């Protein structure tokens, strides 16, 4: 390499990313990593979108899902989706969202039914993820939707019908409007900002702070 070219190369390196296209030392397409085949992609491409993209062949009904539910889900979620201990409740909660104790279930809160299929396959049963067959997941999706009174018990859930299921809370979401807190002025107050400060609550009186232990290795 000639001296002037060397200097040029070093100069490009020094400018970092700005010289991305020009720097002959940076990787060119195909130099790093392995090309993946459609078959390889399919092994990992497990996500399902609201429009149904990603749903596999197969089908199931709530009736078929009942046994799958009892075998795999009821221990934590309860026979009727009522939830055991602190595990999620999956049934009911309709009309509770504006109450003091909202209950968020697929029926009361989830905007898209496809999310049930996606999540059940990828993460459930808890501790044995990605173990269910498409038919089992379709049947469980139907079972949950039926518990939530979104579909009847003989409704066939598959790649064609699931994206068309209208979830009750589909229109319950608005794009992030923040900053949403009304402030009195752009310039924060520095002096005599409030007349009287009143203590409205003490954490110590609630007394739920872990006292002993609580350590994590």
């Amino acid at each position, binding site marked *: 390499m000639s001296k002037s070219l060397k200097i040029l190369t070093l100069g490009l390196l020094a400018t970092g*990313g700005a010289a991305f296209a020009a720097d002959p030392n940076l*990787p060119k*397409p*195909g130099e*790093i*990593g*392995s090309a*993946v085949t459609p078959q390889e*992609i399919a092994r990992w*491409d*497990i996500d399902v*979108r*609201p*429009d149904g993209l990603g749903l596999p062949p197969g089908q199931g009904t709530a009736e078929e899902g009942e046994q799958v539910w009892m075998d795999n889900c009821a221990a*934590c979620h309860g026979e009727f989706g009522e939830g055991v201990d*602190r595990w999620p409740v999956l049934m009911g909660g309709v009309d509770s*969202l*504006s109450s*003091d104790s909202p209950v*968020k279930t*697929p029926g009361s*809160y*989830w905007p*898209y039914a496809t999310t049930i299929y996606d*999540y059940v396959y990828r*993460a459930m049963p808890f*501790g044995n*993820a*990605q173990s269910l067959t498409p038919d089992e997941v379709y049947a469980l999706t139907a079972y949950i939707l039926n518990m939530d009174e979104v579909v009847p018990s003989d409704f066939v859930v598959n790649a064609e019908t699931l994206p068309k299921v209208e979830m009750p809370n589909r229109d*319950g*979401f*608005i*794009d*992030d409007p*923040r*900053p949403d807190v*009304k*402030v009195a002025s*752009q310039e*924060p*107050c*520095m002096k*005599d*900002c409030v007349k009287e*400060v009143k*203590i*409205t*609550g*003490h*954490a*110590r009186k*609630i007394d*739920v702070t*872990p006292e*002993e*232990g*609580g*350590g*994590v*290795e």
Partner: protein
Amino acid sequence: MTQKTIQPHTSLDRRRFLSGGAKMAAVGAVSGGLTAVGFRPAGAAGIPEELPDHSRYLGPGVTDQPYGTPSQYEAHVIRRNVEWLTGSTESSINFTPLQDLHGIITPNGVFFERHHSGRADIDPAQHQLMIHGLVERPISLSVPDLLRFRPVDRIFFTECAANGGMEWRGAQLNGVQFTRGMLGCAQWTGIPLRTLFDYVGLKPKAKWVLAEGADAAALTRSIPMDKALDDCMVAFGQNGEMLRPGQGYPMRLVVPGWEGNMWVKWLRRLEVGDEPWYTRWETSKYTDLLPNGKAYKFTWVQEANSVITSPSPEKPMNGAGPHVIRGLAWSGNGRIKRVDVSMDGGKNWITAPLEEPILPKALTRFYLPFRWDGKSSLMLQSRAMDETGYVQPTIVDLRNARGTNSIYHNNSIMTWLVNPTGEVENVQVA
């Protein structure tokens, strides 16, 4: 590595405090003139008459600890969890002991962890990152492959969107750690997503990225392409060493300023698409429910926030005289511009000097020297402002905007009540 024994939750300071040293000093009269007696912790008796063993006998040699650990006397500086929060420890969170840390970098050993199906322990030789979807050349990258790209080093905080989430209805947990400890700040080393997407080539309709983890939750979040190309990175390094398993070893996503849930750990897949996926984590969770039953969605950014780390419930006052208020401020929208501190619950404020460096989307330190007379009650607050002009709200302001059921994004001003005894507690004021 030797395992640290788990100490009871009572911190060193609290034990000292309860042993009476602080109380005695606190109620002791402050004498005038030059002979004011300073605070001396119980058991610390000044210059000892006897030479201590460590000044006479040999300590261990350099082969004793191939990977070092903190002093045995710092055994109280540990992550803690709140058992009643979740159904199991595998789907749970622990909290950073902010009250015991210094500067802006969170040590890897106490960096808070949030797992959805436990901590995956991955052999890097078995790990691949697949990039596919609306790209010209779908590929998979091994760890050595990733290391062939030019990395960047960037300091960013990461904060769980549920930080402070237990305080919406009132002051509930008594401590910095439990109210603001879903937070850490590190120097991340990794490859910008822009570099990787330039390398595989984006198709014209590429508007969203799905990031997916390789753990048993296979957590997925949709990220808008503008953000991905702006400052996101695939990190493998944290504070100078490889990520630890609890932080996503061997690679994770870094999404600066945005909620921690999006910083997908054990990253195995990036799929490029034209629409968001509406995964369980961006619908059922991480949406902010309002009193009218509607919910905000895609509330990605962590707005400006701050907390006084000392004095605090874990760090009681130890007597009259000079003290320093120490605290942290951060904003997902850029740099911290100013931090104001109040000692009377928000009536009057003074601006606290910020400590360098002041970096965008990173923790920023403030230190404010002050004097305490040893008998007055104080209500300490900090209020951060970022470079966009956004000012950290009060809990009353936040409740007026969003009610008490939104769980996430409670970045309200905290209030520490300093009692005349020197004890400090978490309260809410109106």
